[in-house]
Every structure is written in C-alpha cells, then in structure tokens.
C-alpha cells in the first residue's frame, strides 16, 4: 500500500514538474503576450494541481491535506483573476507587445 502511494506521488509530482517545464517553454518561446499568458496558466493550474495531488498521500493528517487543497484553490482563484486583469490591460494597450 505504502509503495503504491509512493508511486502515485512520484508520477503526479513528475507530471506537475512537466507542466512547469511546459509553462516556462511557452513563456519563452510563444510569439506574443496573449499566447504566453495561455502557457503560463497551464503551469499555474495543472502544474501546481498535480504537485498537490501527488503530495496528498505524503502529508500526515486530514488537516494538512485540507490545507494543501486550500492552497491550490487559492492559487487558482488568484491566478484566474490576475490573468484576466493582465489580458484586459493588454487589450487596453492595443496589443502593443
């Protein structure tokens, strides 16, 4: 059982790391600001989400697990709002980037 949970952790955390890699590559390689924003949100949502998912079996206690999920939800909420604000400010600047 323990080994199985460890495998879940390794797989999910690695998948999360891949999304951070993808987000960075996108941020560097995509041609304009809006597509870069698109890449960033993948790392924000899925990268952190998968890391949280992978860590759930590792923390002890329901409270710590709950805190993990709460942190992810918080990052989601903030990320969604900030991305929307960044996109709007770009539109106001007339897509100068």
């Amino acid at each position, binding site marked *: 059982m323990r080994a199985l949970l460890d495998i879940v*952790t390794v797989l999910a955390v690695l998948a999360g790391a891949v999304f951070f*890699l993808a987000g*960075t590559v996108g941020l560097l390689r995509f041609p304009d600001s809006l597509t870069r924003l698109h890449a*960033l949100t993948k790392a924000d949502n899925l990268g*952190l989400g998968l890391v949280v998912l992978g860590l759930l079996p*590792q923390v002890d206690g329901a409270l710590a697990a709950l805190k993990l999920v*709460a*942190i992810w939800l918080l*990052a989601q909420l903030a990320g969604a709002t900030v991305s929307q604000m960044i996109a709007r400010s*770009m539109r106001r600047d007339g897509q100068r980037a």
Partner: protein
Amino acid sequence: MPEFLIATAGFILMMVAVGLVRILRGPANADRMMSAQLLGTGGIAALLLGAGTGASGLLDAALTLALLAAFAAVAFVNSADRQ
C-alpha cells in the same frame, strides 16, 4: 522519497528561474508580471514539496505566500494599468 521531492523542487525552481528571462526581455510590462506570477506559483510548489519531506511550518508559509502573491499581482496590474 525526500530526495526525490527536494530534487523536484529544485527542478521546478530552475524552470521558473529560466522563465524569469521574461523580466529581462519584456517587451511589455504584462510579460514581466507573467514571469513574476510563474515564479510565485513555482515558489508555492517548492514550499509544498518541502513540506512533503516533513519539515514543519512550510504549509503555512505557502498559504501566506499564495495570499500575498495574489495581492502583489493585483497591485502590479493595477499600477501598470494606470501608467
């Protein structure tokens, strides 16, 4: 397991650090804010991975960081807008 989590934390940090090149290159302020945002998320992920190794208090640090990063990001977009 702790070595794996620490190594992954290092990898994620390295990734978001490479993303910081956008602070240098811009060109728009929006791009700079994006890389700071990515760094914030990466920092939270690294703290969580550290907490997974059993270090105490890191979850609370990540919680605070998530709140304050959101606040800082809002303040930034707001100021960038006003210019």
